[in-house]
């Protein structure tokens, strides 16, 4: 087991290294000048040169990547150019480990940007995950139990329809009708727990949470339905039934337990993905989370922010992959051998 975990972690680390290198090569080593990008749309030539030095874009790719990797592990200082740091010591910015970069446009480290935006994304993710897991599994079990009936078709059909409408349309629909026109919910705007208490915070997260959950719900309903049906046809279910166990007990104690195990994999990866920011949901509702940060950074060509965000999200997914694999190996010992 320990060997398995170590092997998974090493593979994960290698993938992180590979990913960071690919991202660097993609964004820094291509025909488009990264310094001009990072400097913004209307940037005078001397500012471009300054940006190039400040962010270290004048260095070879490997040196840049090495400096970035070192920054992630032990932290670094900006501007990247040593002569520049010595000339203006008052402008030096400390970027503590794990340093993900420095945004020349916002004049702050990418870490600080992320620290500001992350609570919003995490809040939305919490609400969305709760909605889609509770209702996804509940509806999935319902559909499986009433297989072939109107309930089954209704549940599967409704969640598929919800999935078929683009996220930004669902968001706009909720904002314009549920919130503004009918006034069922207050006009969307993120409120921190410190500002409005838990109740207000939760209330303001319901609409974006539902919008984000709508994307995932259909998948969870389908998977739960399929897994429950599969496990209901297993021999041990027949055994449980024939020894006289009640239907409910068979379903919850035997079938559901086995059926939910494969969902762990899906769940882990999806959570990692939404923790890193729901780009469209946050943009529609105008909540300044990591997704909205990415949209803004892209509009202003803020390259360091984009690179930092992509790597953070990639790392989240890779870590989630490891956690899921290890968890799975605990649950199902057959995995370890393979």
């Amino acid at each position, binding site marked *: 087991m320990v060997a398995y975990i170590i092997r998974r972690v090493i593979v994960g680390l290698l993938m992180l290294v590979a990913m960071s290198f690919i991202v660097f090569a993609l964004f820094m080593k291509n025909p488009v000048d990264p310094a001009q990008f990072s400097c913004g749309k209307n940037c005078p030539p001397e500012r471009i040169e300054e940006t190039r030095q400040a962010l270290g874009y004048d260095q070879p790719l490997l040196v840049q990547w090495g400096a970035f990797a070192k920054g992630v592990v032990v932290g670094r200082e900006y501007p990247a150019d040593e002569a520049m740091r010595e000339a203006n010591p008052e402008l030096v910015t400390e970027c503590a480990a794990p340093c993900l970069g420095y945004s020349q446009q916002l004049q702050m480290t990418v870490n600080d940007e992320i620290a500001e935006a992350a609570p919003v994304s995490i809040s939305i993710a919490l609400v969305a995950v709760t909605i889609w897991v509770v209702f996804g599994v509940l509806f999935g079990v319902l559909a499986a139990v009433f297989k072939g009936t109107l309930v089954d078709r209704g549940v599967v059909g409704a969640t598929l329809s919800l999935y078929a409408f683009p996220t930004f349309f669902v968001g706009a629909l909720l904002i314009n009708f549920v919130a503004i026109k009918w006034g069922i919910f207050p006009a969307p705007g993120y409120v921190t727990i410190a500002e409005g208490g838990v109740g207000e915070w939760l209330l303001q997260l319901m609409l974006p949470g539902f919008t984000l959950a709508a994307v995932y719900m259909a998948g969870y309903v389908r998977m739960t339905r399929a897994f429950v049906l599969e496990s209901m046809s297993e021999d041990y279910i027949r055994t449980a039934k024939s020894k006289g166990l009640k239907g409910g007990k068979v379903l919850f104690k035997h079938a559901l337990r086995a059926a939910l195990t494969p969902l762990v994999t899906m769940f882990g990866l999806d959570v990692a993905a939404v923790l890193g920011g729901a780009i469209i949901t946050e943009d529609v509702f105008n909540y300044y989370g990591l997704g909205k940060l990415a*949209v803004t950074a892209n509009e202003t060509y803020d390259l360091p922010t984009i690179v930092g965000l*992509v790597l953070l999200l990639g790392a989240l997914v890779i870590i989630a992959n490891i956690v899921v694999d290890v968890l799975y190996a605990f649950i199902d010992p057959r995995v370890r051998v393979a």
Partner: protein
Amino acid sequence: MSESATVFEGEELSGGSTPSASPEEAKKIAGKSPMKLAWMRLRKDKLSMVSLTVVILVVLAAVLAPFLVRMGVLDPFSYNQDLLDANTIPEGRFSGASAAHPLGVEPGTGRDALSRFWYGITFSLIIALTAAILSVVIGAIIGIISGFSGGWVDAGLSRFTDLTLSFPSTMMLLALSALGLELIQMVTGLPNGPLAQGIYCTVVLAIFGWTSTARVVRGQVLSIKQREFVEAAIVLGASKSRIYFKEILPNLWAPLLVLVTLMMPAYISAEAALSYLQVGVKPPTPTLGNVLTDSLKYAQVDPFYFFMPAIIIATIVISFNLLGDGLRDALDPKGDR
């Protein structure tokens, strides 16, 4: 389709999951080609037939649209500001629907709404279909090589697949847009227009979309390469290319067809998302995503115009999804469901 593959499919099908079929019926079935058998099963499924009809209609509409535009029947670009009131909102109910404009006109410009939606289907479908085919080709090549070679090649390619899956795809689609578009213009010499933007959407969707195909194909190849007919071909001294293309590939058409059908709705939604994020094909070229994005502004003042494009997209997405599910069941009768 090669003989051995047909035998294999026929064997699988005749021994399939219809224990109630009489011996006569089984005999009749055994004489039909696998495609015919799948078609027979698909025809029995009402939901699949309805969705197939919708899909055919949508594809027909998409193919016809450019001709109708050239003939002047559809006019997605002319402004009709005389049909708008002082606030540039269409006069009359249902976005000012009339005989000349069956679905009314677009707020702000007065362009014919039906023409915009209809022509938009064409652009969205071209992007989705090209991206789906590209993804499947990349995925199939990687999957076949991976499944056949085994060992280090397989391990490497599988890790590469995992790595691609770990990239935050929406963020990459967004972040790569400026660079990608510039690169495409440099490589192809195209101006920054709908074509270059469309190529960007297609390529970038395929780059992050081939992984599912690679995994499915690898799994299939792993099981197919142990079947008797492949062993027989090897023993008979068949060349590698014969085994790849004549023995294995025919058995992959069914899963690949299902994959393309299920990728279409995902890519139609993705195109809409790209348009919403301003990194897709830019207006005034109508795509379903562009039309829908534009309609968001008028949710309150012109609800009909707000709902129409969303309903069109949802209908197309649901139809392709249901058809994909139906095809999977029809082509693989031993599947879980």
